[in-house]
């Protein structure tokens, strides 16, 4: 079953942790935000 709070919504299917339309700096920031969110999610108890 795909559910629970260990799923972080990425930036779409074709570039889950990227954004080709953004500048390289912006893109990396977005990627970092998503990875940090994933790490935060991993360090919390599930509901």
């Amino acid at each position: 079953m795909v559910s629970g709070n260990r799923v972080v919504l990425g930036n779409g299917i074709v570039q889950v942790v990227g954004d080709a339309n953004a500048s390289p700096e912006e893109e990396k920031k977005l990627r970092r935000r998503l990875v940090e969110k994933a790490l935060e999610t991993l360090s919390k108890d599930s509901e």
Partner: protein
Amino acid sequence: MRVVHYLNQFFGGLGGEEQAGMLLEIREGAIGPGKRLEQLLGSETQVALTLICGDNYAVEHQDELIASALEKIRAAGADLFIAGPCFLAGRYGLAAGALCKAAQSQLEIPAITAMARENPGADLYRESLYIIDSGESAAKMGEVLARMACFARKVSFNQEIGSPAEDGYIPRGLIRDQFVEKTAAERLVDMVIAKAKGQPLESEMVPATFERIPMPPRVKDLKRAKLMLVTDGGLVPKGNPDKIQGAAATRWGSYSIKDCDDLKGEHYEISHGGYDPQFVRQDPDRLVPLDVVRELEKEGMIGKLCDEFISTSGLANPLSNTRRMGREIADKAKRLGIDAIILTST
């Protein structure tokens, strides 16, 4: 007919949890539930040997258990192998399933077991085996043994096996041809009418079922955690060395990122037929976020990143396949002492 029967240490009468590390032991004739089973199977049938093994030993040394059990079953000249019933006992169910599958495929004799649907062995082996649905309560031992014996006779005498509901086994996901009176259109209309009238109806399509998987506990200390990156987006080194298929992949690969801080498009390709790969091809970090994870590692936000990332292609894949690969990947992560995984999915 000669039967070899498998029991865990508890049902074999050799002890409780304190004996779970016990190696395989062999007893002549029937033991414990095997005695009743032998009676139920009829006077022509004899439980020649009973194999008894500790639950922990059985799962921790499964290959050794299978090898020695097969040797005993073969030497006993068994026509049939029966394991359990295991009810909800997880380690027992896993061992019973593994042994039945091995007896069936390697010795080519019928093998049956019984366990609860929630037993992890059921999910793992229900597609390969007939597993009698025992329910959870060992208080039903007598009734379950009777159903096992009845089913065992059917299997041994090559009688036709009915549907899971008719014969009381856990659905295997098999599709079987059948002659029926009415066309699909007529049956469908009948079902719609029955539904509209609030009458009972039985769908011919069995939806895939997903067992609930408990969420692993949280990572207590990220700063000391070993992290692994996994993807089902099909990122593979140029040339696709493991020949991972772009759809219904049967394989996964593990690729070194040791001393690498940033994935370069020229070194990789995408084996995945389900999404437009142009963006990931330009910069694979868009799928496997190595560049930022390395930064976080250097900043001490995470303990260490694993030297390899794991990849397969998650497209149009039967559950039996993905479950197997998931288990294999989890085994590898365990062996490497991984504390946390980020899986990026397209």
